[in-house]
């Protein structure tokens, strides 16, 4: 029904949109869509991932690092209204003053003292210096549209077309089904090369793979290794395999405490000993895990929680510091530290009080973690350490490993933004649960003076290079002290149809991500194959199928009718 020349690209996602209101949305898929609809202050550079101008053309910082001034670009909202600093100021102020608006990106304005606008000039005053300021994740909203909303926490924002400043404009959203975006002709960088972008939701990952193969969708991201493998033999498909944003690591209960330094939880005392933690580290064959658990589609971690994708911030151990799989060494470390093996082959504490029997907490319903657990159990058995797997549903899991500390070793993982500050912060003392044993947001119960001071240092450091050095030191500290042990960095696995997508630029351009990357680059630069009919999604064949089905139904109905008519023959009578 549509002109064949219209270029439509369909992206399959396995997460549905939670809310079209950016103040409320938290899901990754929604974040990606916001990136395409709204401008941000800055956007990670497509090559270096360094913050680069987006709606903010340029910016300056006061020497104390507390005042930031952004110059807002002269551009127009998609409804033709000019974009001003007032829009940005309204957005931030809304979040700072309205609790309901904090849901989506609340922490991003936590450190804001005040935000003021003057024409195209936006001034943000901070409470404390914050180097990650330029990685601000808040989409700038059109004030003239949104100020009419009375209760932001109840507003669904289901008004189409949306008023935005990004490369696309949302024109339709069917809940749990799809979001349709159209190219924004007035986009300040220029109109995207395709006309329409559809984000189509699949509940069933297997069905999405089928969809990609069939051509129901053109691109799908965040594949798991096996689904990725299954795209192998299709000549129309491109398997996209690059380094990802995630790190998978173990979290070790090395003596969890609350924010007033009182012990909490029931962690095994042996884990307080850094030697034990190091031994545990030595006993992990990360390459094997990558091969077996991730199907080879990951990179063994010789660093910490920041993945190699972020070259600037990535740190990797080398030399003597580097821990390599060595069961003998691990055993020796434990022997030397006085953990003797008992008659049953299981080590005990040096004072003989307790056996080294640890629990390994994983999530229910995550087969990868299950496998991982089985490998770890195997290796640790060689060390004379018993590891028992404890499966927890996610709410219980996060409570036990994040608040009540009822664990020994737990699986963990974190997706890292171009600026790693957020993930680093999860290992700060202040993130531990409060004195009442509640709350908090720690990923390790870590509380280390060295780490704390490094954190404070990097926050003040506005020079990217110097800051990166400090951050690497933090990673090193985590590596050697081992409150967490990084296992591997899973690759980003995606697939797309080359008979539909002529070109797409990942972010970063060098081996970067397509879907789920930061910024709108891939979908802004996307070019569709402009063969006739290719983008019309086989409208003809669809119609054919429909006709076929209808025909079939008619035939069946007729057949049924005749069968019914035929009844009543003498043979049917009963005697």
């Amino acid at each position, binding site marked *: 029904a549509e002109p064949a020349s219209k270029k439509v690209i369909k992206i399959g996602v396995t997460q549905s949109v939670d809310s079209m209101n950016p103040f409320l949305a938290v899901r990754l898929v929604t974040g990606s869509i916001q990136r395409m609809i709204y401008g941000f202050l800055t956007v990670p550079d497509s090559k270096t991932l360094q913050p680069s101008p987006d709606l903010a053309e340029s910016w300056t910082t006061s020497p104390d690092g507390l005042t930031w001034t952004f110059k807002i670009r002269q551009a127009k909202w998609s409804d033709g209204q000019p974009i001003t600093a007032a829009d940005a100021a309204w957005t931030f102020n809304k979040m700072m003053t309205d609790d309901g608006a904090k849901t989506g990106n609340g*922490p991003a304005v936590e450190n804001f003292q005040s935000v003021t606008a003057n024409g195209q000039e936006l001034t943000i005053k901070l409470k404390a210096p914050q180097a990650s300021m330029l990685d601000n994740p808040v989409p700038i909203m059109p004030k003239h549209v949104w100020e009419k909303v009375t209760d932001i926490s109840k507003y669904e924002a289901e008004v189409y077309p949306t008023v935005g400043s990004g490369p696309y404009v949302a024109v339709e959203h069917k809940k749990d089904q799809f979001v349709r975006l159209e190219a924004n002709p007035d986009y300040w960088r220029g109109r995207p090369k395709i006309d329409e972008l559809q984000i189509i939701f699949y509940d069933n990952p297997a069905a999405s793979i089928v969809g990609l193969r069939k051509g129901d969708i053109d691109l799908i991201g965040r594949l798991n290794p096996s689904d990725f493998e299954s795209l192998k033999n299709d000549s129309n498909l491109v398997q996209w395999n690059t380094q990802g944003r995630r790190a998978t690591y173990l979290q070790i209960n090395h003596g969890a405490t609350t924010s007033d330094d009182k012990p909490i939880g029931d962690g095994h005392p042996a884990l307080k000993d850094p030697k034990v933690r190091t031994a545990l580290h030595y006993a992990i064959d990360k390459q094997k895990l990558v091969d077996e658990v991730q199907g080879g589609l990951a990179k063994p971690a010789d660093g910490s929680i920041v993945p190699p994708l972020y070259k600037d911030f990535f740190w990797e151990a080398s030399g003597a510091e580097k821990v390599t799989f060595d069961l003998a060494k691990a055993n020796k470390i434990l022997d030397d530290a006085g953990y003797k093996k008992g008659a049953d082959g299981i080590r005990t504490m040096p004072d003989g009080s307790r056996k080294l029997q640890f629990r390994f907490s994983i999530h229910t319903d995550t087969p990868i973690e299950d496998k991982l657990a089985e490998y770890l159990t195997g290796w640790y058995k060689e060390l004379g350490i018993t590891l028992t797997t404890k499966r927890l549903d996610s709410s219980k899991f996060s409570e036990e490993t994040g608040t009540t500390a009822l664990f020994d070793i737990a699986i963990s993982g974190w997706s890292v933004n171009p600026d790693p500050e957020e993930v680093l912060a999860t290992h700060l003392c202040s993130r531990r649960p409060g004195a009442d044993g509640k709350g908090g947001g720690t990923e390790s119960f870590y509380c280390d003076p060295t780490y704390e001071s490094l954190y404070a240092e990097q926050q003040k450091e506005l020079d990217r290079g110097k800051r990166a050095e400090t951050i690497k030191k933090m990673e090193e500290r985590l590596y050697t002290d081992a409150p967490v042990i990084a296992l591997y960095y899973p690759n980003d696995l995606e697939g797309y149809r080359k008979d539909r997508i002529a070109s797409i630029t990942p972010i970063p351009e060098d081996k970067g991500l397509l879907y789920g990357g930061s910024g709108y680059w891939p979908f802004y630069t996307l070019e569709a194959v402009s063969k006739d009919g290719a983008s019309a999604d086989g409208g003809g064949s669809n119609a054919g199928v429909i006709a076929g089905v209808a025909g079939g139904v008619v035939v069946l109905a007729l057949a049924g009718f005749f069968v019914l008519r035929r009844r009543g023959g003498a043979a*049917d009578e009963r005697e």
Partner: protein
Amino acid sequence: MTTTVEELEQTPVRHGLLRYAATKAGGALLSIAMVIVATFFLFRMLPGDPVRALAQGRNMTPEQLDLERARLGLDKSIPEQFLHFVGQTLRFDLGVSYEYKRPVLDLIGERIGSTLLLTGTALVLAVSLGLWQGARAGWKPGSRFDKVSTAISLVLWSVPTFWLGLLLLMVFAAGIGPIPGMFPTRGSSSVDKPDGFAGVLDVGQHMVLPCLTLVAVVYAQYLLVMRSSVIDEVGQDYITTARAKGLRDDDIRRKHAVPNALLPTVTLVFMRIGFVVGGAVTVEAIFSWPGLGQLFYEAIRVPDFTLMQGTFLLITVSVILMNTLADVVYHLLDPRVRSA
């Protein structure tokens, strides 16, 4: 003839029906009350701190968490929470979804249509097909038709819904060998759904596989129930009377056996609605059908407890209401209980 007595007996039975309906409605209300209480305590048994679960994957300060907790009313005592919950529920306020940050009722409202379309169609198909086939099979137990029908339904009865759904998806949506992938892989309509009749066809095409899955699993039960119900009737004397009257076999079945056999089936049809709903959860998950079942599935996966609680409450209450309706319908249909 003492006509006075005869006329006395003619007194209408309407108020009987009303009273019956009222008793049933009372029973349903009681059941619903039980559901509400049970739901409250069931969800209070939750391990862990829902707020903390909510924050999973995101960075939240303790203050924020407390704020959230207060917002959800989780800082109050259990009796207080209970009263609050009951009050809320009675005002049709099912709370706010942790995940979507929106009233659960709104979320449900957006999806209930799809679910009704799918389950409704499936139910109608399953009921008509199952009852028709069951009636024929039960009329001549042991015949080839009966054997084939029973065999098919027994197999279908043993098949896990999701597995059947996956196989159908793999065969008819993906296409295998000579079978083309003729049905869509997801959803209830195409993104660029045409208008008018073509649009209806489009939805129809999307509905084929999920509907088929649901029908396959559900209809077997109806078939078996109807079959044994008809077998029960076949031995009755009034059937012999009908034969003695010179009726044709098919007329006996249609006019006498089936109407009687249908009656006990009515309640069963409705009683199995819970089963259909259960099937819908799986089917919607497999075919990405944007309905309540999917919402529920998602709520479980997240887990989003208010959403789970709300959906559970709604599903349960509607199944109870359906059953009550069934009782009343049965009452209307069966002259024997109608005046009893």
